[in-house]
């Protein structure tokens, strides 16, 4: 169905997140501000066919992140992410 075709997983934004955080982020863990569930970023729900990237919690479908890229800037809305845990660079 076309409904589920739009939904990808976090690996679809591996490159984008590497550009923003300058490190591999798909193994990091995000805590949903809505339902509290913890997801590996590589497994979150990702919608790319939109004015920006929308990342949603795979448990409750709430928005975890909104990423807009334009005019040489990024806008990153993390209101839906209570905590983002990732390995510090060496």
């Amino acid at each position, binding site marked *: 169905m076309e409904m589920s075709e739009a939904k990808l997983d976090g690996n679809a934004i591996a490159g984008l997140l590497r550009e923003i955080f300058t490190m591999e982020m798909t193994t990091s863990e995000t805590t949903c501000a809505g339902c509290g569930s913890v997801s590996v970023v590589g497994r979150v729900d990702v919608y790319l066919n939109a004015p920006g990237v929308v990342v949603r919690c795979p448990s409750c479908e709430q928005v975890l992140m909104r990423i807009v890229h*334009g005019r040489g800037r990024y806008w990153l809305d993390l209101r839906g992410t209570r905590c983002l845990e990732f390995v510090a660079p060496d």
Partner: protein
Amino acid sequence: MGFISRGFRGKRRDNVSSSRVPPGQHVVTDFPVLAAGPTPRVSLDVWTFSVTGEIDEPKQWTWKEFRALPTETLTADIHCVTKWSKLDTSWTGVSVDTLLDGVESAADFATVFSDGGYTTNLPLDDLTGKKAWVVYEYDGQPLHPEHGGPVRLLVPHLYFWKSAKWVRGITLQNEEQPGFWESNGYHMRGDPWREQRYWGD
């Protein structure tokens, strides 16, 4: 033979210099589906459309009541901020002027809200004066869920993210509150002819 003719595919219409295509846009003939989340499903038995917020007497219509309102069919060009434009699209629905008829409000702004949690903000002036509709038919057919059915907002003079899919109501406000995209980089108004795509445009 290794030769493959590219053949004629007709004249490309993108990048066409036209008074109907805003700057930075190209014309498409298909109808791209944009989605910021899963497609919501709502039963028409429980569906309602509301006008709430800064209003003396909030209004609400059931599906049956909504469909009994006077309708209009219109043809419009639509412009998506992701740079495609589609010309001569045909819609049927209820004018926002009809929905706000008789409403007493001092509000200058509105937030349109949808199933699935999407919101978008508009000055009330952009929703009234024969500029905006709540539509349930596209090209003579019921609006497909992937395009916002059962009903979506249609505000063709602004970028298409303002034409919220799966719309359920309008909240009237005294102050402008940024919506789903407007709170994260996208322009508060979104006039395609002024290329108001991002904050600062």
